[in-house]
């Protein structure tokens, strides 16, 4: 595994008696797109704020780009908070340049980079307009630009898709993918599984401040008991490794479709091999890949507020 762009080691954050993050450990490999998944109050925002040095952990250790969290790293970080706002009277260009300057860019390059981003976001014509004249979607784009203007090595996005219409959601997905392609590590928190499913190389699932899962999407899915649909003349429930088999639909020429769940640790390939060697007649054999939503429910529980 390559070096970690961010690593939490036994990190805890308490607010009075309330534990927002509880002994959390994980590492985000450089160059990956990393998803923080969890319902409301899972500890996603608190974790990001600690990584940004806005909050200090009660215990444990955090590394960001090889150093403890500090504003010194701000020049290599892009951050988009969950709740967004901009200075209403400031012009679009000035706003982006201001944030670039806060992230230690010089005025000239800051302006160039800001204009290039505005071109890409199709907002160049609005550069001189005050932010208050923009539509909500446009203002969201400007906010994204403030996070990207310094071409960050590490991009942290807190619920980046919330409040965006589908067109802008797609645009943001493309921007995230492009940033990753350019070598940035992207960490984003979300409770919308669709985006994570499309974008993330690795996932961290959080439940009430604790880690529920940490790994790739394949690993996450593999952790769930495998599921498949097959058509046979005999019920498959007696086959080795099958936990349950439920007939679905009606028989066709004696062939019946079954929804089959395997015991955990048993792969569909093992079952298929058993059927062929033992002459168990099959007309179809479809492996069902579990959705991320199902994976999430499996790890975190059905009570968390999430969206598919």
């Amino acid at each position, binding site marked *: 595994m390559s070096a970690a762009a961010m690593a939490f080691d036994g990190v805890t954050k308490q607010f009075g008696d309330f534990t927002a993050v509880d002994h959390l450990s994980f590492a985000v490999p450089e160059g990956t797109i990393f998803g923080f998944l969890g319902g409301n109050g899972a500890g996603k925002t608190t974790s990001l704020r600690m990584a940004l040095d*806005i909050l200090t952990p009660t215990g444990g250790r955090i590394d960001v780009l090889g150093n403890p969290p500090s504003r010194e790293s701000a020049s290599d970080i892009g951050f*988009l*908070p969950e709740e967004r706002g*901009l200075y209403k009277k*400031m012009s679009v260009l*000035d706003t982006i340049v*201001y944030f670039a*300057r*806060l992230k230690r860019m010089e005025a000239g390059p800051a302006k160039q980079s800001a204009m290039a981003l505005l071109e890409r976001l199709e907002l160049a014509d609005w550069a001189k307009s005050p932010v208050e004249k923009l539509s909500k979607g446009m203002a969201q784009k400007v*906010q994204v630009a403030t996070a990207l203007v310094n071409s960050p090595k590490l991009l942290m996005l807190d619920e980046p898709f919330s409040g965006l219409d589908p067109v802008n959601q797609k645009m943001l997905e493309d921007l995230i993918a492009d940033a990753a392609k350019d070598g940035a590590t992207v960490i984003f928190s979300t409770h919308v599984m669709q985006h994570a499913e499309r974008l993330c190389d690795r996932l961290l699932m959080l439940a009430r401040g604790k880690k529920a899962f940490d790994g790739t999407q394949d690993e996450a899915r593999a952790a769930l008991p495998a599921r498949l649909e097959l058509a046979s003349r005999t019920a498959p429930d007696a086959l080795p490794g099958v936990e349950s088999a439920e007939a679905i639909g009606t028989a066709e020429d004696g062939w019946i479709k079954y929804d089959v769940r395997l015991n955990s640790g048993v792969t569909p390939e093992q079952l298929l091999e058993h059927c062929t060697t033992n002459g168990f007649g099959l007309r179809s054999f479809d492996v069902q890949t579990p959705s991320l939503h199902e994976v999430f429910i499996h790890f975190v529980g059905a009570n968390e507020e999430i969206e598919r």
Partner: protein
Amino acid sequence: MREVMLVAMREIRQVLGTKGFWFMIAAVPVALAVSGFASNQLAPERSVAYSVVDETGLYEDRITARLEYDYQASELRDLAEYVERWELQDAVPDAPWASRQSWLFPAEVERFADMGGSEAAIAALEPFREEGVPEFEPDDRSYEQIAFPDDLTLPDAGEEPDEKLIAALEGDVDVEDRELPFGAVLQIPANFGEPGAEARIFTNGRSNTGLIRVIREELSGSLQDGAFAAQGIAPDTALAIQGLQAPVSVIEPPPGAGRSVVATRSVVPIALVYLLLITAVTTGSLMLQGVVEERSNKLVESVLACIKPDALMQGKLLGLGAVGFMIIIVWAGTGMIGALYFEGFAADVLRPSLEALDDPLLIFAMLFYFVTGYIVLAMMFLAIGAVSESMQDAQSYLTPVILLIMIPVLIVMQAAISGPDQLVVKVLSWIPIYTPFAMLARLGTGVATWEIIGTMVLMVIFVWIELRLLGRLFRASLLNDGKPTWKRMVGWLKSSEAGR
């Protein structure tokens, strides 16, 4: 420091981008210009023409002489001020105008008039007048006597004036190339002095109170003279009695000393008190609005990802402090240029006030109290902004805080001006939120050095503690949603880890 400067520059640009700021900054120069223009162009003409129809022939000269005396006395006073201002005392050392005195004695006024009045004095001063020193400009006489126009007639006793007279009194008359309003006609009937007979003054409705007062006094004086005579007192004796002057001589400190210089030296520091209040409250409100916007807009988190809350706070203090300073420079600058450029009362007050600030400690102390006073007040506004969700919310904290500051400050100002040694002023000098105001108000009157140094040390300690405590409150409340409870705020003030 770089981040602090960036925040400060943004704050400055934001304020400079508002129309309200430019209206405010232009208010004083425009007001000065308008008032200057108004006083130059629209002021009522000072001179008025009047006529006396004295059918007795007894009183006219007396009134004329009195008006001339008053004019000469006023000229002498102005001339003495001019001579002192331009340091021309040595030109004619024994001249009546060589030294300025609050009290003028008749003998001196008469000597001045006999020497040729203003015109002779101007001629005598001419060889001593250096380049840049303006020539003394004598005032016009306030009341110019003219002969009663032949085409007018006065009403008989008890009758109303005819329309022609009324119309004439509403018009102007030519007096030595000048057009003056015809202000009044005094009619003294032949039987004046007998019971029932009265002198009448017909006017154009303008209140020529000075003229009417003089006429009253002189006519009364004449009647008193008559009464003395009726009592068998010889006219010379009567005159002697009336002319009796109590032997009082007035001794004044030389120019540049005494209480007058104390008052003079207080002008600038006391002006600073008001400027401090105005700028702190104005820029403090802007700061408060800014913080409320950042909090309610949720943009503060983006900023805090890049810079520390302390840098944000310091940047705001610095930026809006600079805006406050800009306002003061423009206001005080235009005020000063206006006052010095245009000769007049303000210039006469301001010029010596600036000259009286000759002590470096005094100047340093003024600046010190001003800056620390600004920080103390501005921090309060900043902290209020940080714990408020909306401007409406901020208002509920703001009102008591402003009252807490304003009321004692206004008391201090009253007390400091009437008697700087009053206990209330001394006590308030040692209560840090009032120290800058009380000390500025007292500075001109001469404060013991130990008291200046003591209160300065106190202010440094207080500002340090305030920055720490309110800094915690600011930091902790920035990312805290909603309006914190008092209990929570006290908790933040106590904890150095607040908001971390």
